[in-house]
């Protein structure tokens, strides 16, 4: 199977939506290259380049879409890459629990 070692979301790395076409992806790639030149940000540059390789044309994008999901990955991957939030809610909801016997 055509597996990829890319970690994270390539659309997110390039800063484009999932609906972005070839031209938009290329433009975003060039923008990111300017932002992360290889001599100053080699790690970021590499990530941007790899992300572009995965998305550069419709065929590549569909391949990535088909095979990037790993059903054997840890189950908590269903949450996606965003770590869970702990929202500040003020004292009221806390006090509501305390009121209960």
């Amino acid at each position: 199977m055509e597996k990829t070692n890319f970690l994270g979301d390539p659309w997110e790395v390039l800063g484009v939506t999932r609906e972005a076409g070839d031209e938009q992806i290329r433009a975003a790639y060039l923008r990111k290259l300017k932002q992360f030149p290889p001599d100053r940000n080699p790690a970021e540059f590499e990530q941007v380049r790899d992300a572009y390789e995965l998305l550069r044309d419709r065929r590549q994008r569909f391949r990535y879409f088909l095979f990037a999901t790993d059903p054997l990955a840890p189950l908590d991957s269903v949450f996606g890459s965003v770590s869970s939030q702990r929202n500040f809610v003020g004292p009221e909801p806390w006090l509501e629990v305390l009121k209960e016997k």
Partner: protein
Amino acid sequence: MRELIAGKHSKAAVETAKELHKRHPTPSSEALLMDAYQARIRSLLEHGMSIEARSLLNLVIQRFPSVRTRWEQLVLEVRMLEGNLDEIVAPFADPNLDPFVREKIETVIRQRVFDLTALAQASSLSPGHRLREAARALTGALKAVTSQPADEADLFLPEVSRRGPLGSWKALINAIAAFYRRDDTSCRRWLQAVTSDSVPARLVPVMQVMLGSEGGASLSSAAAQNLVAAIGAGEEALRQALADLEAALAAQKKPPILESVRAAISACERFRPDLRDRLRQYISVRCMVVGFRPNQVRRVLGGTPRTDARWYQLMATALESSGYSESLAHSLIAWETFRAVALEEKWFAAKSLEDGVLLLHMAGLAARVPADLAEELLLLTDPEDSISQAELTPGQLFSPDVLYERACTADPHSEAFQVWLDWAKKQRDWRAADQVAERWQQACEKDVAPLLWLMESCEKRGAYQKSLKYLHQAEQLDRLNPEVRKAKLRLLLADVLRHFRQRKPHLAKSGIERIESLLEPAGSLAAFTSALHRVCAALEKDHDAVRRHRAEAEGHLGNPVAAYVLDRGIVDAAILAPEEALLTPLDLSSYTGGTLLKGLAKACLLGDSVGIPAAIPENWKDRLRACCMDLTIALDTAEMLVLGEAAIRSRTPELAFAVSVRGLARGGADARFLFLRARSLPPGVSERRSDCLSAALELAHREGNKDLAGKLLEELRGRPRNMFERDDFAPGPEGYSMETGFLNEVLADERAQKQYTMLARHVPASGGTAGIPANHPRPNHIFDEHEEFPEEEEEDLADFEDFLANMPPELRRELTSAIARGASPEAILKRILSGRSRELESLLKILPPELAREIKKAIADGATAEQVLNEIEAAVSDRDSGRTAGQRQMRNKGKTGAERPQQGSLF
């Protein structure tokens, strides 16, 4: 009376106690009555009937004033329920407050006061009272820690004594602050400091749930559920449940898995209902991977997971990643069902580029499903029926040709056609590849690759003119393309060699001239044309020209040995006798080891570049091996590798081994020298060879050497562990991954081996096994199928191979499958040679095909001919006697070999 009180029948207890006290008034009866009243008042309080409780309390105190002091706490509790905090704390204004009363008030504050703002504003407390200050500070701190990241200063709370009635609040506030800064350990520690009967203790179980602690209580109250939902912290609990499930799946123990699945689904429904469907899909796939049947999965999940396109995608990917033939076949079916559902769900359109990408992938899978397995699966179904909702019939689904054709129609591009052509080249019928190339040429008119293939194909069939036509077309498209130039050189050279074979040197000359026009006028390639001229001259018996051209070649190459090897290569390729080509054997003693090795390497390099691979003369081998071991002779990596390849080609494994010893000792190209080492090993050490190939593949992957990785994969798949046929269980590239520790072990072992030997490398202490993915979720016993035969059995293998070669193909296939599944060749041999096997063989010829097939499978799975015949006799006897045969198991239940994984059928 006591029983009535304990049983919460306080009203009846009061009535009975009153009656008793009325009839027989004693101190004991009074005490009993007081207890009954107290229970009644508490019961009223519990039911929120504060007015009734207060009235009854006043009445009792009025009639029995002596209880007032004893009932101080009850009085306070009644006041508390009435919300009369002022009255409760009013006694604190008395500097001479009885410590007993103080303690009772403090207990009530600890256990009942949740409104700290009210406490801070209690009018009966003096303005600077410690309790007021503490309540005020805690109110502010609670607001601070629940609204934003807390400052250390907010948490210090010097106004609050840890031992005071509000001490637990201080611990709670610190726990909340730690929770928000994700310091969960500290949070748990603070929660432990909360007194269990205090008001803050009501939040402890809720916070434990939010921390994802094991054994966290369920959230029964709406307020608790609202709090968790508002904070979004239920995810922690869900994550913990998923981690538990992950551990249970890894342990592959059924009851804990079922329990963990239930817990995870329940947590998901509570905290992240939006993820429920997706999680059920993942869990169902994971459960099936570890061997649960679909109905078991449905039961534990509480229903069928949503079988949409995403689910089929997950299932297909999971099945495919195992790499086993049966799973691959099921994966193919899953992909096809995915395709049908995805089309319905409008993920993509039929015959679109995306459809082509998917079909191309499916074609690759179909090509990996062994033909006999595909046949077996096709037998189970009508090949004309469509699979589930899918468009393709099973017959089409298992045909790589049909799938490639559809893929290339949907998305006609060079890469897809190249894959199809590569597959077609491996088919027996040469026309298949030609037809693909023709389709390719029609679809992508500017591609030269199909023309080059057609040219080569025609050339192989001797259709030289047609071949030239294709070359001409390719040149028109891209004359400067190196592949085209190379193909042209090969074609012209083939023509020259053909004329040599036909002893027509005059015709060969014009071909040589055309070759000269293609090549650089100087250097190694010029030496090559000189060598061709030399053969031409030899055929014309022009001795002067022969000497002249040889001198030219030697001049260009700078090495007489190289010129000789080149001449010899051309003579061999033209199938001429050396004498006829005036080629006299070289006197090796005249040349130093360095000249010999370097000359040979140079000629081999040149031969490879023009498509005439040089062979090493038989009588050179010992000298070359000795020279190779002489480290004073400098050889670079390229020279060593080309010598190694020539040695393999010339079937000189000892020389190839010697080259690999030198190459591995030098370092820097370990992948390539391990590849060479693997191929130089004798057939009896297949495990060691497999280790070398797997290690080389791992290194090639790490070096990003795709070309070498492809060759290695081909070699690994083509050199099955069962030694008799291509590996039906061949995993994908990831299936051969090797852990670094084992890789280093293989490298160190191979570096240490300096002598060509027939012995297998020792099994490493780590017990690592090549080909087993390091972290593959499949159980180990599945991989045991691939274990090598024990060394003592290897002696029997040669005999067994001969035996197999002479047996009917169908039976041979069954036997090799059994061996691949772990059966011992020796045992099979014994079984086959047992007395009744011939009898069985005759019987098989007259039995209905289905039954014959069953019997063959049973034999392959371990049953003896004796057992099978007995079973048949018993079945016939049962039938004749009118009895039902029942569940007669023909297969040998006590087989020792590892069994195939039981893949629950999903479809």
